[in-house]
């Protein structure tokens, strides 16, 4: 504990802190610059295209916020991939029959119920969240298919589609509002409340959290419920933007969302994470999708390139953190 030791520890801390924090921003910038140069004649840099990227990533960003809480608590939620469709379909069906409020509440409620089911199995039956949510991912993929016999349900309520999809308020599209509000509230809860601190402590060292008087099962239940509820909200946003609900909604989002969260600086094993990082990670994934399409890659090539880039990004951010 000499002074030399102390300053060395301080130094190491500073180094790691910087790298870890900036990986996602550097990656974002690198991909942005790459596309800006390569696609300079293909309209990548137009305001329209860039705002499209933000609009398209809104549901994934919302899901990513929930996943930051889940992963920070040391759990995982794979079921979000099918919760989105269940919530969207439940909302669309109820909306048509019982009106706007009922539709919205049913959509969010469906997501919340899936989350509570996952959470109860994880927190109180003490099953690993990976297995629980892998099972419920499949289970609710089946439920969403059987709900309407694979049919797509149109959403015609213009208030709903305006509020959750194509509308705008003060000249800013509603999807951007949803993203901004969810990120802001999520960030404050995550960083500035006792609940957020308890989520991090639970993921970091569940025993320490428990002997410190934190109810670890309640935290686990809560993060799964939050994730389910936000997946439900993502379902509403999809239904609003596409003016229809279908069992395929959200199907391909799972990998994107997990990658966004990890690239954004959230540890897979819990104890550390960032909502803002997840937002930037999500935008980065959206930009990647958009750029690869503009580059004219075939769908299969897009999937391959995207997979490789996600692999590289995840590897870099995990290397930075595992020191």
């Amino acid at each position, binding site marked *: 504990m000499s002074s030399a030791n102390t300053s060395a520890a301080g130094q190491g801390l500073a180094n790691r802190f910087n790298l870890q924090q900036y990986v996602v921003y550097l990656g974002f910038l690198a991909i942005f610059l790459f596309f800006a140069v390569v696609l300079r004649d293909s309209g990548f840099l137009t305001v329209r295209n860039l705002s499209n990227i933000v609009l398209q990533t809104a549901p994934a960003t919302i899901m990513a916020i929930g996943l930051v809480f889940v992963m920070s608590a040391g759990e995982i939620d794979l079921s979000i991939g099918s919760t989105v469709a269940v919530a969207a379909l439940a909302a669309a069906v109820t909306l048509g029959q019982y009106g706007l409020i009922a539709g919205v509440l049913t959509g969010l409620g469906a997501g919340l119920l899936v989350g509570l089911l996952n959470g109860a199995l994880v927190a109180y039956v003490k099953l690993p969240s990976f297995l629980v949510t892998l099972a419920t991912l499949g289970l609710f993929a089946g439920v969403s298919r059987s709900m309407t016999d694979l049919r797509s349900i149109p959403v015609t309520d213009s208030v709903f589609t305006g509020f959750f999809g194509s509308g705008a308020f003060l000249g800013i599209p509603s999807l951007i509002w949803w993203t901004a509000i969810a990120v802001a509230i999520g960030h404050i809860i995550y960083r500035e409340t006792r609940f957020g*601190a308890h989520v991090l402590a639970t993921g970091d060292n569940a025993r320490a959290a428990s002997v410190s008087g934190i109810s670890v099962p309640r935290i686990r239940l809560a993060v799964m419920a939050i994730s389910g509820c936000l997946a439900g909200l993502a379902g509403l946003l999809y239904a609003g933007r596409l003016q229809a609900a279908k069992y395929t909604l959200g199907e391909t989002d799972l990998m994107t969302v997990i990658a966004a969260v990890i690239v954004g600086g959230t*540890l897979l094993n819990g104890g550390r994470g960032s909502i803002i990082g997840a937002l930037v990670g999500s935008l980065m994934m959206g930009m990647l999708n958009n750029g690869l399409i503009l580059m004219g890659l075939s769908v299969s090539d897009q999937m391959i390139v995207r997979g490789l880039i996600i692999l590289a990004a995840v590897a870099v951010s995990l290397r930075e953190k595992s020191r």
Partner: protein
Amino acid sequence: MIPSEANAPVLKLQDIHKTFSGITAIENFSLEVYPGEIVALVGDNGAGKSTLIKIISGVYSPTSGTISIEGETVTMSNATMARSHGIEVVYQDLALADQQSVYMNMFLGREPVNGFGLLDRRRMIAETESLVKELDVRIPSAHATIRDLSGGQRQGVAIARATHWASKLILLDEPTAALGVAETAKVEEIVLSLKRRNIGVLIISHSLDQVFRLSDRICVLRRGKQIGVRETAKTDKNEIIAMITGLQPV
């Protein structure tokens, strides 16, 4: 510090008995710890020290016998209740959240909030800094992440946390088992400084040298039975070893 009759013991265990499905782990254990006193609990592996610590920290309830804190009989069914009685435990594994800052660990589970329900970081940092300074725990800053600290620094943080919250008693479970010589000396200094705060300290240690350096009294446990309590100044290692092993000194 010699226990005086004027002071009520912070902790009094009377005829504590604990059986696990018929098997006796602790029998007829009685002990008093006075404010400002350091009592060492020694005994071989399996003598029942951990069971006793768990009883005092509220994890187990005794099968029979009473626990009193400052003369008041208490029943505790979990660690939270023990904490609300002013008892803090420094666990062998320290129970620190490694990825979090020192100040968040200091307030783990008991974070203060401001009028808006948001974490009062300024207060946590200020209180951490003053306590760390007072106890002379040498850490880079209250913002440092636990896993960047050395073993001695971590132990210092765990003890500082217990000190911050304990109003009556601190239980230390093998506080220096994983530490080097210099770090052990530093931690012992911190433990000795706790006497000034007028709280009781019950320490478990395998190092008799350490027990003789720190404690005012030594309580020996063998196979769940209390063999005896000695004033440290009036005994020697041979007697304690004989009591621990049950063999006569040569």
